[in-house]
Structures are given as C-alpha cells and as structure tokens.
C-alpha cells in the first residue's frame, strides 16, 4: 500500500527513473456528448503507441470551453502549463503567442509533411506572424441550417431557404401555422447566428474583411446585413431563449419550430442522443446564402513553452495531426478530419456532406467568430458585450460603431 501510494504521488521528473514518472498531462474541455468518446479513442491510441506514458486527463466541463479557458489562463499565469492544451484554431491563440506561452511548430509541420495535407486556406487562417503554433485535429462547420422536414411538409414549404430574404417569406407562412420559424439559445448561439447571417448577406470576401477591418463595419452594406439579423431574430423565440444549444434544438425536434442555425456537432445530438434518422427525421443544409462556403472552426493542440514533458507532448502532437489519429478521433466525436486525405468511408450520414465540401478544392473557407477563429479573445469579449446590447435594442449602427471602436481599443 505504502509503495503504491509513493508511486502514485510521483509527479515530477527529477526524482526516480524517467520510465516510471513519464507523465503526459492533456488539457481540454472535451467532457461530454461525443467529445469525450472521441477523446478516449484518441488517448487509447496514444497509450498503445506509448505504453510507458501515464496519461493525465485534465478536462474541465462547461460553456463551450469558457470554464476551461479561465482555468487555463490561471495556470499559464502561474507558469504551470499542462503538456499540451486545447484551443480553438485561429486568433484565440494570439494572447498566448504574444505572452510567449507556446512554441512555434514550423519544424514539426515540415517533418511531418503537414503543409501538403492541410488545406492552404486553413493554414493561412491559423498562421500568426508567419508561423504555425498549433495542430488542428478536427474541423467543424458553423454555417449549417438544421430543419425538421415534417414541419416544412406540414405548412407546405418545398425546401429550406437559400437566402435570408426567402427565410423571411417562409417565416410568415410558418408563423401563420403557429410554428416558431427559428430557435436560438444563449448569447454565444446568437453570435453564431450573427456570423452566418453576415456571411450569407455579405459573401465570403466582404465577410472575411470584417475581421481585419478592411471591410468598414459602418458601411451601408454591413449595417443592412445587421438589420437583416435583427429581422431574423424577430422571427425567433429570443424572448424565451434556452440556456444552452441542445434545449434550443428541442422545439424543432418536437415539431414546434422549423429551423436552427448551429454547428455540425448538432448532428450528434439528433442522431445519438435523440436517436433520429438523418434526412428522414432531421435535415441540414448550408445556412442561407452560404452555398459553396465553409465557415469553419477547429480544435487544435499546442506545445507550451516549458511543457514539463516536451518529448511526449511532441509525440502527442504528431499523433493528433496524423491520418490515423484524425480518422480515429473524428468519426466518434462527430466531426471531420482537418487533413484532406481522411478515409471517406468513415464519414457517413450527415458527416458525408461537410467531408465532401471540405476536401473539395473549389470550396471557399472562412473562419468563425463565435468559435475563436477570426477575432482574439479581447476583441471577441467586447463584441459579446456590444452584441447583447444590439440584440435588445436593434441599433445596427450603434453595434457597428462599437465593434469598430473595440477593434481599435484592443488591437494596439
């Protein structure tokens, strides 16, 4: 007993032989609904390949990663980083890079030949100062319009809308039949909706320009798109918005509502949790106006400066970026590989659609606001603030001005 206790407590490298105390601490917010199953599968593969390594899984639940990020900020400030931690791909990592918390991974990308297997548009969006600091393990799509085919049949709508204008027309029909046209959930899902209304109304080029402010937020075009967002919200259940994204989808499943804009993780909810059948009980298409565009977000892993077990962490990153690793993780998690050479036979039902679009070179890739790709946390938090004000007031010009001002305040 005493001996066992002593072994279990051995959590530093300095004492004892390296073989016994070779730990790997892995930090994520993957704790439920497909996430943790995918994580278990990937960690099991890692354990097979590295039998000497004791894996410490530090996962923190809640709020699409917000709780985990707060804990992570504390640990990084205290110079106590895990061996590898999860961040959303893109600008969410900028504060860490600026604080010199993560190593750049350019040589790893060269050695593993990753520059050829990840789409160039993806690598562009996750490059900071010409360097790559993270390894994407999966891809999720943000611009998905989920719907209940039975509800559309019932009110005589032939197909989901392809523009937001068409949505407004359908909304009148749906409301006349006593249905909620569109459901929304908490603030971050409203932001998720906003980015896709902007993308649908402005097109990918103007949309992407919003994030380096080469598109003027206060231009008539953007303000019109923001007004469209207000109109769309006017046909939603905003006043009784659910506290999470799953209950926001429930009215749709129960036949009280028609549409919901949510990322493709919703597929796991429909298919696994609610045991529904793709294309019969629920359907999905690109959100209005975004055909041929892939609004992406991705989970990535980093190599912190002063990672306690750097060599093991590099082994982990190699696995996370490998074809085998991504094809093990993604079918279980309900996402698609970031690599374009994944095995298509593994991605069936709904997942087949984003898989085909992602690997299609003619697809335009843009990044998600709500999931950390295009705005860093400082700016995004200010956008959150302004958005809640905007949702209450409908003042599009005020919102555009606030977002622009916040860019100037936070990006210097």
């Amino acid at each position, binding site marked *: 007993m005493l001996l066992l206790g002593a072994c279990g407590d051995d959590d530093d490298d300095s004492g004892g032989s390296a073989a016994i105390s070779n730990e790997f601490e892995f930090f994520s917010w993957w704790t439920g609904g497909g996430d943790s199953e995918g994580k278990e599968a990937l960690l099991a593969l890692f354990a097979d390949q590295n039998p000497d390594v004791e894996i410490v899984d530090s996962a923190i639940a809640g709020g699409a990663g917000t709780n985990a990020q*707060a804990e992570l900020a504390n640990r*990084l*400030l205290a110079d106590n980083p895990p061996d590898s931690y999860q961040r959303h791909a893109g600008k969410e990592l900028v504060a860490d890079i600026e604080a010199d918390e993560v190593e750049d991974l350019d040589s790893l990308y060269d050695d593993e030949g990753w520059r050829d297997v990840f789409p160039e548009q993806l690598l562009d969006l996750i490059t900071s100062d010409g360097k790559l600091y993270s390894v994407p393990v999966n891809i999720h799509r943000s611009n998905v319009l989920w719907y209940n085919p039975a509800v559309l049949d019932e009110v005589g709508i032939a197909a989901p809308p392809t523009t937001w204008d068409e949505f407004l027309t359908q909304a009148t029909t749906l409301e006349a039949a006593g249905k909620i046209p569109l459901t929304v959930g908490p*603030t971050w899902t409203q932001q998720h909706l906003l980015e896709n209304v902007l993308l649908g109304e402005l097109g990918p080029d103007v949309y992407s320009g919003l994030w380096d402010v080469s598109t003027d937020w206060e231009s008539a075009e953007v303000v019109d798109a923001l007004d469209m967002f207000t109109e769309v919200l006017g046909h939603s259940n905003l006043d009784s918005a659910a506290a999470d994204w799953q209950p926001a989808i429930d*009215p749709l499943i129960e036949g009280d509502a028609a549409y919901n804009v949510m990322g493709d993780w919703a597929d796991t909810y429909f298919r696994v949790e609610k045991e529904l059948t793709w294309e019969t009980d629920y359907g999905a298409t690109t959100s209005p106006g975004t055909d041929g565009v892939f609004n992406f977000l991705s989970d990535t892993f980093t190599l912190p400066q002063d990672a306690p077990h750097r060599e093991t962490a590099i082994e982990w990153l190699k696995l996370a970026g490998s074809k085998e690793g991504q094809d093990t993780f993604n079918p279980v998690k309900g996402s698609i590989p970031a690599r374009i050479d994944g095995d298509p036979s593994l991605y069936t039902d709904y997942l087949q659609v984003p898989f085909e679009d992602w690997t299609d070179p003619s697809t335009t890739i843009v990044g998600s606001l709500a999931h950390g790709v295009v705005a860093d946390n400082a700016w995004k*938090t200010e956008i959150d603030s302004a958005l809640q004000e905007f949702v209450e007031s409908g003042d599009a010009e005020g919102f555009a001005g606030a977002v622009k001002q916040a860019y100037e305040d936070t990006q210097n």
Partner: protein
Amino acid sequence: MLVSPSLILLGVFVYGFLGWNLRVSLSDWRGLRPDYAYAGTDNYQRLPDDTRFTDDVENVLVFTAVFVVGTLLLGFLLALLIERGVRGEGFFRGVFLFPMAISFIATAIIWRWLLNNAGGAQETGLNKLFGQVGLDFLANDWFKSRGTWAPAAIALPAGWALSGYVMALFLAGLRGVSDDLREAARVDGANEPRVFWHVVRPMLLPVVMSAVVILAHISLKTFDLMFAMDVESRKIETPALYMWFTTFDGLNFSRGAAIATLLVAGISVVVVPYIWYSIRMERRR
C-alpha cells in the same frame, strides 16, 4: 500571542491581496503577460460610460433590494409562525433550513426549470402550474422579462435558499426575549401588538442588523446563481459576473480588478457601519 499567526495570514491573504488587486486596477494589464506599470485611474474613469457596467449595477441593486427585503419578511414570518407554537417544530425548522444546504448551482438548475418562460410543449414549472390551476394571469417571463425586473426573479431562488437561515436568526432572537418582560408589560395593561412593538421589537434590532449585513454581502457577491440560471444573459448580469468575463474571457485584468475594487467598496458601505455599530454597542456594556 495566540492570535498572531492568524493575524499574519489575514494580513497576507486578505489585505495583501486587496492591495495587489488595487495595484492591478491602476495598471493597464491586458493579455496573459502581467503588466503592473502604473496607468492611473483610467479603468475607473471608463466604467461610468460603460453601459454594460451601469446596467449591471442597476441589476445588482434591484436584486439586492428584492432579495434582502423579501428574505427578511419571509424569514420573520416563518419564525413568528413557529414561535406561536406548532406541532413538530423540529421538523419544520429542518425543512425551512434545508434549502441552504443545497449549493447555489443546484438551486439555479432547479429554478431555471421552475421559472422557464417557454410556451407550448416546452412549458414547465410555475407557468405551467399557474395554467393548470386557472391563474394564467400570473404567468410571466421571470428572469427573461424585458425591463429592469429580470434580476428580481433571481431573488426568488436566492430567498428560497436563505429564508430558513433568517428564520433561525429571528427564532433565536424571539426566544431571547424573556417571558418576565412580556408578562410585566401585560400586567401593565398592554395588548399583544403593543407588547410586540414596545418590548419584543427593540430587542430584535440586533438580529435584523446582522441578517441585513449577511444578506446584503451575499447579494453583492452572488455569482454562481446567475451564472447557472442563464449564462451570459445581460438581463441578470451583475458586476461580479462582468468582472469574471472581462478578466478570464477577455484577459482584461486591469478592468476586472477595477470592478472588483468597486465591489469591495460596495460591500464596505454595508459592513463598515455595522462593525462601527457593534463596537459602539459593546463599549456601552
């Protein structure tokens, strides 16, 4: 000598950290790298123009008013009922005290369901109950209502959790009034309301004071209840939540520290007069 270790710990972990927080609030620390360079009172000057902050202050004032007054009244009423004599007093005391044993997170999850304002198949909780007993007009949007009263709905679960505790305080206070005093007043010809007003009420004043201080400081620092009721809803956000979001999501440590300092100042407004009052009372004895 015996108290000196705790004095040192208190000095470091309370006053030391308060000072550190003040220092951060006077810097321009944003991002993960600590930056203590003095930047003046910028953070404080910006807060009055920050509508998110001013809305949050309004929310916490509405919440505090409804929560403190409501809980005091309910707690007092319960104490009075028990004091008048009920069968199985121990059982009722236990039942009334029990909600305090449940964490605010669990309380919020229960009440999120009870105060749901969705209609149709999603209708649950109090609104559904009102509908079933024919009191439809009572159904409302609770913590999702527009206007200033959304935080008042959060006072319901908070009061539910703490009114039992206030009841216990009042019960102890009521029991502390000796029967001799009441008898004497009755012999002098006072009726029951007058006995209460002139004999019992003055002796309950210290109980009211401590209950108010306890409730007010809980109210100002309550975080988990709002967080779990409806995360990031501006309708029920308070400065404590804004402090958290701006610090740990936006990494704006200096603004977070400024809000935290103002929260401490707000709590002091309640607590310092109380301490002053208690010290004065003790000196008199």
